């Protein structure tokens, strides 16, 4: 039994290691690509615009989704809890509004496809022509 669980854990670890996260923007966004540093600054609230100076509308994944923790760890080097503390400070000092929490990859994709200012992150397998990949993590 123990070896079965160990095998399963290994298999799951392999799956999550293979699952690429991509940062997506609206196809109208002029940025060809974003650097990890730019994405980090946007999701930590220190940058309120894309590199060309246009505004950003941030999408987030659900608190319970595994992709959320993986994204913040890869993009910002911080845990989802640390990022939450950062956004609480930003919110209660009136310096910004936290990313809009959506329910799934499909919802994030629809949000980004529908707003020229939007940015989100989804599993690479969910990407289609309605959005543009700006960064692979």
């Amino acid at each position: 039994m123990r070896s079965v669980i160990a095998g399963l854990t290994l298999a799951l670890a392999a799956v999550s290691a293979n699952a690429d996260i991509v940062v997506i923007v609206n196809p109208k966004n002029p940025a060809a690509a974003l650097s990890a540093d730019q994405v980090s600054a946007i999701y930590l609230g220190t940058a309120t615009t894309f590199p060309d100076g246009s505004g950003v509308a941030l999408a987030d994944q659900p608190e319970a989704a595994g992709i959320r923790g993986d994204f913040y760890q890869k993009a910002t080097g911080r845990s989802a809890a640390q990022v939450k503390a950062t956004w609480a400070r930003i919110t209660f000092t009136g310096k910004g509004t936290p990313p809009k929490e959506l329910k799934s990859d499909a919802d994030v994709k629809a949000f980004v496809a529908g707003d020229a200012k939007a940015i989100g992150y989804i599993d690479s397998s969910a990407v289609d022509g309605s959005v543009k990949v700006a960064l692979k993590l």
Partner: protein
Amino acid sequence: MRFRTSLIALAVAAVLPSVSSAVEFSYNGFTTAGYSELDEDGVVFKTTNDMDGIDSSGTFEYDSIIGLQGTVKFSDEWSFTAQGVVKRETDGDFGPSVDWAYLKWQPVSNLAVRAGLTRPPTFMFSDSIYVGYSNIWVRPPLEVYGISPVYQLAGVDALWRTNLGPVRLTVQPYYGNSELKLPNTTTGEGEYKLDVKDWYGVALTGEYGSFTGRVGYGDKQYDDEHPGLATLKTSLTALGYADLANRLGMDGNKSPILNLGLQYDNGTQFAVAEYAHRGTDSITVPELSGSYFTFGNRFGSFTPYATVAMLNVDSARSNEEIQIASAPAPLRPALTALDASIDGLASAVSDQNTYSLGLRYDVPSFSVLKGAVVKAQIDHVEPKDGGKGFFSAAPAGFSDSVNIYSLTFDFIF
């Protein structure tokens, strides 16, 4: 309070005509429940704005607070935000107050202008000291955060973000009025409110990779006298020391504050250091320098941290201007008493060092609580120069070290 209420009314009135069907409303909240006590009888730890503080009998009230913030968004450019808090007020009673209330205009994504009640960025974390969930410590080091007793600005500020090469720069200028609230410790009931005018300043913050650096400068002028000093000033004037009387107390005193801050955070390790200096024109309001250094390391949900903080009194702690020996004999007792009063005020604060150890634990979020944190902290405070350091009360001649024990629960919802 009059000018504040009218400012809010003005802000709301300015916005009402543009209210459309696209108005969005959102709210958020934060709360801290804390217990703290210290280990020396008769010693009280508090800021100058508090009637009561932490003492040897312990308190559930000193760090406890509930805050609720609501924002009405009229358009991409215009919004109105109000934040109310319930906490122990200056007069010692638990009660509600409006902490922030501002109209915000954001014409472009990297510029926002706000008018109303805000908290200026005097120090690096001045505007978020109540949001325990976001802060490293149970409470920010008093050696720096205790040197400015005025927090709330009734006026305007702006937030402008730009890139300076690879550095992300934020410029936040502000201007307005305020009030200094001090507890009436003579009667133990109620509070004094002294007007503060021409409060202006700017904070420059630069972010580069894991580093954040900042420079803040602000000045303001007190525009009322502390009622407790009236008798002293009148007596001094009557005895021929009018010039000295004019250099005492709060009225007309300017209190410029310079702040430097440096922060490093690579996600796992972090370090924060701040330095602050308060200038003064008044003999009885000490010139102070404060600094601290905090280091911490995150191990999963646990974050131990350590702080060393220092307070230095830069001004003279006694005054030599009153010539008692050369005065006519009948005046000497009165002059001796006045001299002692002035020295008592000038020496109310002495140098001190504080060494703190703390542990933060991030509780997994559940139900309506979006985030929860437990913090435990021990502060070892060492007053210097035979004084009582920054303690607000201590037995006569007390200058021993004191330990403060604190446990807080911070939530956001």
